[in-house]
């Protein structure tokens, strides 16, 4: 299996390309400069293995065996499970204690307990164990999901998937990265945007919230109150795990993450969990009353667990700016050319909405919605030189073009129809829907070229936006394989497209002649000679399967799951009630 370079980011003459969970940098001729490797401990502890492989680990065992050496992503998952398990355990014990006297006939209390426990274990196995098994590789090495660059090109920000982490790097201008910070968000970030002043990151997550966090951050020393809060947590194992700094071999400069300072989150949890929310007057049945009593009884333990979670989640400053009740797919911070002093935050979600809100500090004001999509929105693009126009795409057959500041639809341009036109008839028949994975703009004179790629479609669609807002398809390029990302090298006027080498249509002979499968293609534009863009005869980057040191243990299916995630946003669940 050859790993593709699935995310690209161009910074002047430097190309950053994420491959799996590592970030490579190249110069404009694709000569390698450096590699940042995702910090993963190589050896797995036995406990870790047991956690993944034994079918039914007992809750007790999981509790007692701290997993200090595992990869961070896995560890986090396990911890979550444990915290939940601990509280459930305590809850059950209390209920059992209460009902014991009442047991009549049938099963003995002990048998009941055994039954219940095994049932629970089965459930746990099904959910957590199964999930962990399926995504084992993904958990070990979370893939880079996105790369973002500050406008001054001095910092690169990356998000990795299953460990929900935002990484900030300092870029020396020559392609070398120095890791400054890593921050694990409470929920998985789906997209990022940077404010124009390059000081704030906006992170749009899977739960629909947009958090702002400072680009540069220094973890503060544990304070007295943090220690006190930590002391309040009953289970010491949990604490030690939370506080365990993750080993980062490649970057000694990275500060270890000590016990986090308390934030409002922690305080909130403390105040929230002091008393039960219902009272004797709000519950109307005997059973509910009993439940309330139980709730009161195990509040202390719950509090401890929640505190631990809150501590973990709030190791750094992050502020909720706005939110949808839907998974976010894209976020942008834009300034409309007509209102130079105003910044807007534009967010798109899986429920067909594109929302236009004001920028920080007035992000609570919703200016409007761009409504009209029938399927999920996966990408929005505001061309750099045409800040008044927004192009959105997703699961619909068309691209939508908006005057976003006045929430007006300017027009649509077909995607599915163009795709079907360009494919061979037998291929075209199979394609009944498309999922847009990237919309990218390149300015050339008066014209704005918009490049669009769709999931699992080996084509590059090219559209043109003119100054009078006509938006139309101009060209379709067939590629060697399915494109994963597209970027523009301004200095060389070269468009670069990364493709999945596993889908390459190159024959083995070609491969041998070229020294590997094409992984990144270079495209050049020549308006005078031929019409439009074409794949450059030379250039690009080849990969060979064997030579790579970071070859993957992923199965093709796993790799597909990690690389092609957009189509799964489509709603298929039609059950009801």
């Amino acid at each position, binding site marked *: 299996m050859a790993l593709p370079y699935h995310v690209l980011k161009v910074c002047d003459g430097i190309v950053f390309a994420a491959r799996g969970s590592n970030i490579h940098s190249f110069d404009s001729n694709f000569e390698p400069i450096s590699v940042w490797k995702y910090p993963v401990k190589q050896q797995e502890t036995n406990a870790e293995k047991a956690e993944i492989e034994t079918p039914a680990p007992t809750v007790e065992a999981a509790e007692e065996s701290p997993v200090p050496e595992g990869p961070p992503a896995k560890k986090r998952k396990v911890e979550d499970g444990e915290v939940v398990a601990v509280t459930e355990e305590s809850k059950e014990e209390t209920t059992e204690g209460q009902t014991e006297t009442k047991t009549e006939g049938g099963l003995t209390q002990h048998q009941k307990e055994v039954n219940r426990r095994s049932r629970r274990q089965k459930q746990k196995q099904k959910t957590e164990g199964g999930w962990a098994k399926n995504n084992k590789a993904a958990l070990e090495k979370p893939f880079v999901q996105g790369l973002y660059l500050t406008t001054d090109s001095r910092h690169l920000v990356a998000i990795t998937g299953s460990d929900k982490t935002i990484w900030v790097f300092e870029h020396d201008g020559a392609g070398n990265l120095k890791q400054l910070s890593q921050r694990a968000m409470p929920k998985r970030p789906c997209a990022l945007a940077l404010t124009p002043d390059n000081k704030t990151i906006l992170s749009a997550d899977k739960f629909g919230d947009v958090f702002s966090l400072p680009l540069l951050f220094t973890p503060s020393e544990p304070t007295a109150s943090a220690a006190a809060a930590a002391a309040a947590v009953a289970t010491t194992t949990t604490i030690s795990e939370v506080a365990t700094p993750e080993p980062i071999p490649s970057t000694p400069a990275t500060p270890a993450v000590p016990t986090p300072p308390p934030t409002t989150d922690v305080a909130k949890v403390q105040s929230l969990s002091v008393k039960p929310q*219902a009272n004797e007057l709000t519950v109307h049945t005997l059973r509910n009353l009993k439940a309330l009593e139980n709730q009161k009884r195990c509040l202390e333990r719950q509090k401890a667990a929640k505190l631990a979670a809150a501590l973990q989640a709030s190791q750094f400053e992050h502020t*909720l700016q706005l939110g949808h009740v839907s998974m976010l797919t894209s976020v942008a911070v834009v300034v409309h050319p007509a209102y130079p002093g*105003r910044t807007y935050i534009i967010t798109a979600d899986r429920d067909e909405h594109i929302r236009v809100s*004001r920028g920080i500090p007035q992000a609570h*004001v919703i200016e409007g919605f761009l*409504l009209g999509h029938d399927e999920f929105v996966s990408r929005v693009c505001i061309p750099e030189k045409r800040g008044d126009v927004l192009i959105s795409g997703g699961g619909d057959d068309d691209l939508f073009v908006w005057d976003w500041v006045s929430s007006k639809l300017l027009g649509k341009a077909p995607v599915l129809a163009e795709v079907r036109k360009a494919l061979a008839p037998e291929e075209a028949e199979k394609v009944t829907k498309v999922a847009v994975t990237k919309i990218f703009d390149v300015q050339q004179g008066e014209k704005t070229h918009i490049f669009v790629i769709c999931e699992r479609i080996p084509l590059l669609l090219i559209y043109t936006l003119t100054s009078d807002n006509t938006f139309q398809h101009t060209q379709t390029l067939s590629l060697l394989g399915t494109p994963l990302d597209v970027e523009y090298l301004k200095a060389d006027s070269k468009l670069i497209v990364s493709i999945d080498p596993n889908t390459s249509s190159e024959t083995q002979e070609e491969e041998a002649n070229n020294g590997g499968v094409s992984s990144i293609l270079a495209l050049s534009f020549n308006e005078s000679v031929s019409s439009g863009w074409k794949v450059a005869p030379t250039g690009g980057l080849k990969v060979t399967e064997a030579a790579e040191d970071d070859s993957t243990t992923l199965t093709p299916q796993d790799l597909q799951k990690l690389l092609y995630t957009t189509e799964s946003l489509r709603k298929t669940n039609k059950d*009801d*009630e």
Partner: protein
Amino acid sequence: MSEPKNKRQKREDYRAALRANGVTELPRKKFYRQRAHANPFSDHSLIYPPTPEQMDWASLYPHYAVEEPTEQKTERTESEETLGQELSAPAIRKLTKNVEVADIGCGFGGLLIALAPVLPETLVLGLEIRVSVTQFVEDRIKALRVQNEEQKLYRNIAVLRANTMKFMPNFFTKGQLNKIFICFPDPHFKARKHKQRIVSTTLNSEYAYVLRPGGIIYTITDVPDLHEWMVGHFNTHPAFERVSEEEQEADPLVEIMRNETEEGKKVTRHNGQKHVALFRRLEDPQWPEEVSA
């Protein structure tokens, strides 16, 4: 196992029979029971318009529909034919007035029915996520309209199945609403379910979007902590301020909200507490650049 099947069958038969007869008698609640909770995060198979302009309000409020939409069609010239076809395809009849009051989570519709005679000139819409409950309210309104045909009552209320947490902007334009009622919402006691609560910092921004400045949000609950939660979240939201106690008690709708909702009656029966809080939508702040300029 056979019993629930029978029950379901009975329910379906009852509803079908009721509808076949043109719904003249009030529906009976026991044939519309449904689990009290719905997951607002799941996709369901909801029906909602892509934009508020494409919402077919006339089918909900037939007595307020603009007459003769066909005239417009014939007026179109031949040259506009292609354009006209596109426009007339949905054939959405407009209303003489827009919905201005929304009851989010209307349940079995007690408040709607009490509001109908009090706000005779206003269109009131109940929104409910549970299918059976929505059907009950629908049948109830239909029956009431038939029974009160001469007095022309209950023509200004309607109900809609919707997930307002996700799709509020699909139904209402910016500043369309004047009042929003949130009565006895699901308290979601567990902390990990708090994200499902109908009042939250992020959702309040959406309420501010559909409410016009000066519009009021009415909240009532019997759960003290939920009351504190709602007051806390609206108070800290810059788009809202709490309405003073005096003004609150002077509002006749507050009394109706206390006593006429189904849940409110139940709480009264159990001698429960009722916590009311009203919040006014403030004007949007000036843009920062305009303040500094």
